[in-house]
């Protein structure tokens, strides 16, 4: 009864140089495509294929000015942090609100047939309407400004969180309810002891998709005439025909979205250490 076997055979420790290479290799690999793109961009501009798009070097220079100023000293110099903060607060505000509504609602719809019959058809009907189609109505309802952006982000993040929560709750393995009830955990106690933990991976999938979409719709949300925000910067860049500004805005959104996704993944891997598909 005592001679147990490890399921994961111990791996021989590689030599330090090899270990370093193993860690650096994926980073290097992931940089190849972006660098090639950058090169292609550079050559295309240098070859005069387009006069409307600035070269990577010009964009880089402008990015520095956008971030810390001291080069062009125009209306956008050293304003990156202001716009980033404005956008991030809308993204996270709308996202947190969406999560606060969608998770409890999803748990209810997944568990309770009455609530499901009451709300599911309505929600399914509303779902195909794209966030962009809400823009005019949202401007009427919430006015031109931050509240409208907030609302659109909320809408964008709401459905992935809701649908994944419902999916998670409805797909708890029936065996686990049997196991819980034979061990003396019955009725409502099963909600916290079985349903919630079993649905957690799906809920996290929803949160991750929702946060991604929140960054996705922020540009649309900030088209509604807000003075600050990365979406506003991109819109201003367009009206002023300042393509380098548009590209700077795009890059910042990309990086910010990427970082916030990594944070969610990190949190997810920590909380879902038990799950074979989330190695923490």
């Amino acid at each position, binding site marked *: *009864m*005592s*001679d*147990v*076997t490890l*399921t*994961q055979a111990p791996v021989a420790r590689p030599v330090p140089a090899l270990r370093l290479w193993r860690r650096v290799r994926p980073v290097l690999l992931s940089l190849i495509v972006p660098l090639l793109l950058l090169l292609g961009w550079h050559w295309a501009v240098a070859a005069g294929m387009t006069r409307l798009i600035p070269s990577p070097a010009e964009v880089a220079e402008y990015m520095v000015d956008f971030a810390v100023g001291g080069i062009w000293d125009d209306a956008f110099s050293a304003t990156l942090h202001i716009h980033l903060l404005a956008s991030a607060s809308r993204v996270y505000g709308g996202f947190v609100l969406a999560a606060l509504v969608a998770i409890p609602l999803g748990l209810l719809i997944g568990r309770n047939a009455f609530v499901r019959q009451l709300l599911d058809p309505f929600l399914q009907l509303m779902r195909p309407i794209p966030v962009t189609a809400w823009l005019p109505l949202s401007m009427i309802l919430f006015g031109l400004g931050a509240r409208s952006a907030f609302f659109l982000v909320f809408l964008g993040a709401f459905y992935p969180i809701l649908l994944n929560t419902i999916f998670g709750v409805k797909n708890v393995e029936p*065996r*686990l309810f*049997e*196991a*819980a*009830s*034979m*061990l*003396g*955990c*019955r009725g409502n*106690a099963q909600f916290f*002891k*079985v349903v919630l*933990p*079993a649905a*957690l991976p799906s809920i996290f999938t929803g949160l991750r998709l929702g946060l991604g979409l929140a960054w996705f719709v922020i540009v649309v949300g900030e088209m509604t005439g807000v003075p600050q925000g990365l979406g506003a910067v991109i819109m201003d860049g367009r009206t002023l025909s300042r393509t380098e500004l548009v590209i700077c805005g795009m890059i910042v959104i990309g990086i910010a979205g990427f970082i916030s996704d990594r944070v969610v993944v990190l949190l997810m891997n920590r909380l*879902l*250490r*038990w*799950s*074979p598909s989330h190695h923490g």
Partner: protein
Amino acid sequence: MAEIPILDIQGVGKTYVLNDSRIEALRDANLTVKKGEFVCLIGASGCGKSTLLRIVAGFEAPSAGQALMWGKPIAGPAPDRGMVFQDYGLFPWLSVRENIGFGPASRGRPKAEVRDTVERFISLIGLTRFADAYPHQLSGGMKQRVAIARVLANDAEVVLMDEPFGALDAMTRERLQDELLELWQRTGLTVLFVTHSIEEAIFLSDRVVVMEPGPGRIASAHQVELPRPRDVASPEFNEVRRELGLRLHSHHAKKAA
């Protein structure tokens, strides 16, 4: 009347209604089990073994007859009857320690008592080193040890096992059979054990109950008189195996005729 049996299955039948069709999974099953007895159910698949076990567990209600424990009708799942599933049924988000403590904690036992119980059963099944591992980090045999410990830690009097070793390799299976017998002899448990293997049935049980399909029912019961510990290679064991094999096949032959 003599002493009350721990399990008394009286004329139990079960018909599943699926869409418009009715499937008679079990008809007029009668079986009494004494406390401390080890009973194996054996038979072709589809003859109602799982159904009978699930009725005793309280997961299904009988359509006819009644199932009694200590003379009282079984009304639903309860800790006095623990099931060990072939697919383990462990909670993947709980560690070995937490899985074993799930039952006692759910039933509101004091924290210190739960901790003591858990430690006792972890060392009993030899998984001290894996106390904090999650189910997906364990081998099949280790998972099934945890599933057994989880039921025992919850003071189950009857352990229901539905082909518990069916998914394990031969060596692990033999080791778990030995461990199970050791536990059974030490604790005075009552075991109802479903298997496909004649050898496993004879090696483990006091009594082998043979079931037949179409509709599922109990065909015959055979007392196994071999002294324990049993040796599967002994001529006596082989004699019993041969006899039981003949009975099983004669049931089938009768059906085919």
